[in-house]
């Protein structure tokens, strides 16, 4: 990209005070423009990130300054079956929910991309689950999955499919299915609408040409839509995986980790240990343990994208 700012002719200045420097030096001015944003990000993001890792090596509790205890928290967690259960739950939750979100989201995007009446209104409606605060829709799901008064149990019972109510959030398997369902429900609109925006930029003439050459609908999708969408799919799915992996509010509103820790994710477990039980150090160790997984997810999508670029022979601009 062309250098945008025009280097001004060096003004003939006898006094080179701070104000003139500010007005004419790009780097100096840029620095001052960055100060507000950087102040927030350093004090409330970078510093806490480091502090969190430090806390995980101490035995800090609420109301008591901690001492350095090296890796004791991590050793303790290593032998903690609930921690490993939460890791397993988190991975299960992330993989299954992301896979469904991707499949249904892509499918919905393809459907919405068709020409049909009330297209704009449909698209607007589809996005509503994404707008509504997650905890509040999770409460609605809590009520829908109630053990006694669930509307799903009622409907299935009246259809003659089951003889007694399903204990949705009380049974370990059902509870996992329910929270994953609620997460997919919340995430599909985001995936669908962003992929739809990508789809709209694919030129229709490509499909016309391919169809004239005898391509089937599947071939149209496989050899035109999918390759052109890959970059945006990678970005969207990275976000989706990251936010699913670190999910907290949905679980907290629906099950609080129960029944018997079957839906405890790492985030909810760290909240429970750190804030409710007061063991800040241990909670920090659990949340720090999420970092390698997150880095791995970022790396996968990053290098996935890079590889695509090389294949397409683009410059790394």
């Amino acid at each position, binding site marked *: 990209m062309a250098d945008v700012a025009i280097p001004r002719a060096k003004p003939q200045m006898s006094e080179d005070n701070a104000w003139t420097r500010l007005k004419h030096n790009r*780097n100096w001015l840029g620095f001052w423009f960055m100060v*507000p944003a950087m102040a*927030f990000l350093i004090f409330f*993001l970078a510093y806490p990130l480091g502090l969190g890792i430090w*806390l995980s090596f101490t035995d800090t509790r609420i109301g008591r300054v901690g001492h350095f205890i090296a890796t004791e928290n991590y050793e303790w967690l290593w032998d903690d079956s609930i921690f490993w259960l939460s890791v397993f739950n988190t991975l299960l939750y992330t993989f299954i929910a992301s896979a469904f979100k991707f499949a249904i989201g892509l499918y919905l995007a393809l459907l919405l991309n068709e020409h049909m009446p009330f297209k704009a209104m449909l698209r607007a409606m589809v*996005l509503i689950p994404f707008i509504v605060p997650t905890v*509040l829709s999770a409460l609605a799901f809590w009520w829908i999955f109630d053990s006694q008064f669930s509307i799903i149990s009622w409907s299935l019972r009246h259809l003659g499919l089951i003889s007694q109510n399903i204990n949705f959030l009380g049974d370990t398997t059902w509870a996992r299915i329910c929270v994953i369902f609620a997460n997919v429900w919340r995430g599909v609109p985001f995936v669908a609408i962003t992929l739809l925006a990508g789809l709209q930029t694919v030129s229709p003439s490509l499909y016309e040409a391919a169809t004239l050459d005898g391509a089937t609908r599947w071939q149209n999708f496989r050899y035109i839509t999918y390759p052109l969408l890959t970059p945006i799919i990678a970005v969207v799915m990275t976000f989706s995986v990251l936010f699913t992996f670190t999910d907290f509010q949905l679980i907290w509103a629906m099950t609080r980790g129960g029944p018997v820790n079957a839906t405890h994710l790492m985030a909810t477990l760290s909240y429970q240990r750190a804030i409710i039980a007061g063991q800040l150090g241990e909670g920090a160790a659990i949340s720090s343990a999420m970092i390698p997984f997150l880095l791995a997810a970022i790396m996968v999508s990053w290098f996935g994208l890079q590889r695509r670029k090389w294949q397409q022979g683009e410059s790394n601009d």
Partner: protein
Amino acid sequence: MTDLPASKVDLKSVLSSPSRVDHSEGMSYLQSVPRRIVTLYLPLAIIVFILLFPFYWMALTSVKPDEQLLDLDKYNPFWTWNPTFKHFHKLLFESYYPHWLWNTMYVAICATVLSIVASVFAAYAIVRLRYKGANLVGGLIFLAYLVPPSILFIPLATVVYQYGLFDSPLALILTYPTILIPFSTWLLMGYFKTIPFELEECALIDGASRWQILVKIVVPLAIPGLISAFIFCFTLCWNEFIYALTFLQSTSNKTVPVAIVNEFVDGDIYRWGSLMAGALAGSLPLVILYAFFVEHYVSAMTGAVKE
């Protein structure tokens, strides 16, 4: 290192797409009507039904009288003929709901304004001043977007406590921008790139300072982008849960989502009506806002992902 996942799609086409009237039939004439019903309308109807059913259920529950809520056999559970506003009355006049609504608004607006101001400066500096290391800083800001609140809330709680901000709305106003700034900076960077820099050249030649260019040329031209960023940030603030849950303690200081989860969930078997009324009342302001700004919202969502 500094190049970020950038797709070839430019923001301009996405922004203009809602207004572009699509007269072309595409290739849909190749499909017969029955085939379209099975492959398009039916799956679409099922998905939309599932996506919207919880809201219908929320709304219905909030206006049902108590005895109908729990007796599914005597009354048809899918409809009610005698709606009651008892639950809303309880919410508005017997709880702190107006307080919570005010807190949420206050926090969301302050945090959003702070973030947008900081982001305008940052995005302008990165895109147009192109100071030394601008690309690197842009990349770091993108990485900051990927740091989730569930990793930060424990150390932030200690920071907030040390600064004496615990249980004060200020704690949220200062911490929310860490979520909002990376997002809105990326969105605005994309937006500023679409503003022709010839305009700035002219202004520079005419002797305008960088500050004048920003305030009188770039910001007015970027108003649609600013609205998008504002709406989206506001929604994110409203939706935020874990910081509000951790940093606030007294009932009257809470934000709507936290308060409804914590204050309405009790052992009462008849709680569902007021709980759903609370959930509905907490969602409606956002849905109304969204209804007015759908296009800005969509462009914010897709824009930030694309850049």
